[in-house]
């Protein structure tokens, strides 16, 4: 990219870096995203995914039998079911949040968690959202910016958010995820407990390594 910006010649597979297309100004206009707008996007995306594959199925059935039409649209059907499931999870999270009367600071951080979940999922499935005309590239770009902002907003609470899951060390059974954070001491102890360390010299040395060396 640096070379492209300096106007230097690029190898053919990278030449696209030097040819940024003009973007119409109306696509760059700011759009306000709130929970309700985001949920509308999920809903519309799920609906259009389903309608799209349904229409494809109907068209196919005019040419071939139902079974063949179904088989020729399996990928679209799976995609529709996924978008429906994505929508459901989002819907359940938002409705739990909006119906709640939780402690205000906990609710505030859960609202951030929820917003990140929604924004991140739209971006994870942006291909489908774009194809379904629910999102345009300019909006996707705004969402990417918002996702980065949310990462920074959630960063200070990351440890507290996982502490709230309340999993005791015994259940996690992890040297890395210990509540006290004494990771390196635990890894050292874990290494020492290896069954291979029961002998300073493993029997395989005398049994196989020495004879092998003697024959070479």
């Amino acid at each position: 990219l640096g070379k492209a910006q300096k106007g230097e010649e690029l190898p053919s597979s990278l030449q696209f870096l030097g040819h940024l297309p003009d973007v119409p100004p109306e696509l760059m206009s700011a759009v306000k995203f709130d929970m309700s707008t985001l949920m509308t996007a999920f809903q519309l995306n799920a609906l259009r995914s389903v309608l799209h594959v349904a229409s494809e199925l109907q068209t196919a059935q005019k040419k071939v039998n139902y079974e063949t039409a179904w088989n020729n649209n399996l990928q679209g059907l799976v995609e529709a079911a996924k978008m429906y499931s994505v929508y459901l999870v989002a819907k359940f999270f938002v409705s739990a949040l909006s119906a709640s009367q939780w402690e205000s600071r906990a609710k505030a951080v859960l609202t951030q968690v929820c917003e990140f979940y929604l924004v991140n999922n739209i971006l994870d499935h942006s291909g489908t959202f774009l194809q379904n005309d629910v999102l345009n590239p300019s909006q996707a770009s705004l969402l990417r910016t918002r996702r980065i902002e949310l990462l920074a907003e959630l960063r200070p609470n990351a440890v507290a958010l996982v502490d709230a899951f309340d999993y005791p060390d015994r259940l996690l059974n992890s040297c890395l995820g210990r509540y006290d954070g004494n990771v390196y001491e635990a890894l050292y102890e874990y290494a020492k407990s290896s069954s291979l360390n029961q002998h300073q010299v493993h029997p395989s040395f005398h049994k196989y390594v020495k004879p092998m060396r003697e024959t070479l």
Partner: protein
Amino acid sequence: VNPDLARERKNATFNPEDLSIILYGKENLELRRKIFKEISEDPNFAKAKMFPTMSRDEVYEEAVRIFGALQRKMKEHGYVKGCFDTYALQHYYYKNAAFIGTYPFSVHTDMYAPTIKGQGTDEQIAEFLPKAETYQHIGTYAQTELGHGTFIRGLETTATYDKNTEEFVIHSPTITSIKYWPGGLGKTSNYAVVMAQLIIDGKNYGLHPFMCQLRDLKTHQPLAGIELGDINRKFGYEVVDNGYLRFFHYRIPRTNMLMRNAKVSKDGEFSRQAIPQVTYLTMSYVRMGIVQEVATLLAQAATIATRYSAVRRQTANSQGIEPQILDYQTQQMKVIPAICTSYAFFFNGFEVRKIYDSVMAAVEKGDVSRLPEMHSLTSGLKAYCSDVSCDLVEICRRSCGGHGYSNASGITRIYQLLVPCCTFEGENTVLYLQCARSLMKF
């Protein structure tokens, strides 16, 4: 406590305790902690630490021993009153004691007993359930066959009614019809709910559940007309004796068909009380359980990855200080989606449970109109939540760098528990298609 972690906790803008109460409820949270304390202080459960170095036989034996000890302990503390409604607590109790996420009796508590409750007549429930609750009958749910999975109409095992003796003859006509995979079938169970094609006078009436005794209740020897055993080692779940089962014209009394939804009279007359989809309720129930279970596994992986990311420092900045890796945007983009998705899946699990309970309440009153919705919802969400959790747990593992590959991370164990969720109770693509079929219909 590591100073970095201490500082993270000090700088948080909320009290994690408030959020824990939101997730579990105050009473349950206290109970969980009480149980954990009891287990930690009990030498009976200390040996479980040895699991990674044990042979398969030793792991299985130790898992069974721990389960027995826990049952006694739970009874002693009044947590078990002979009722499976405490099964969630039992799971938590066991997981804390044994580190392994599951146990050889899990299908007994999660599927066998609920199927008796959901598909037995009042008389059958009175006969079979108390024995299941006290582990006189240890059961499993035998549906999947060696050559047949989610497409249950393709199952081959037959239950042919013999009017003369008032018995069903259960038979595995081919190698592909051998029941394969049920948890606890290999060595643990002495009973099974067997799903088989009901045949009366040569006519096939579809799939129905049959109570089959597999082993002698005193000697635990397999009964005549039955061949069964363990299916051997797997990628994970070493504590569970997934099994195979073959019937050779094995006879059971007519009254052993679970007849809440469909009946066969003494003279061989078939009648149906509910739509056939009621037979699949157990699958919806289990899929709902998976939706809840994967949320907890993902949350555990997220906990490990996040705490480690706060402790681990890497690559000196311009001041010569190695920052916490959690300060790198790329690391945040690994752990924060896992944290947020865990929360989303927790709340999703609660909502699905609420919907399931309301559908079940309606079914008990004879209203089966919402069964297709339940089937569609649990199929899609089971597939989606397990897919996403698997992907995110792998990202959590990588976020721990090389140490994530060590069993010391704890994430390798979580991954082993999650991976099978993408194939059991329906391979995910098949489940998406079941969901899609419903969506098209709706």
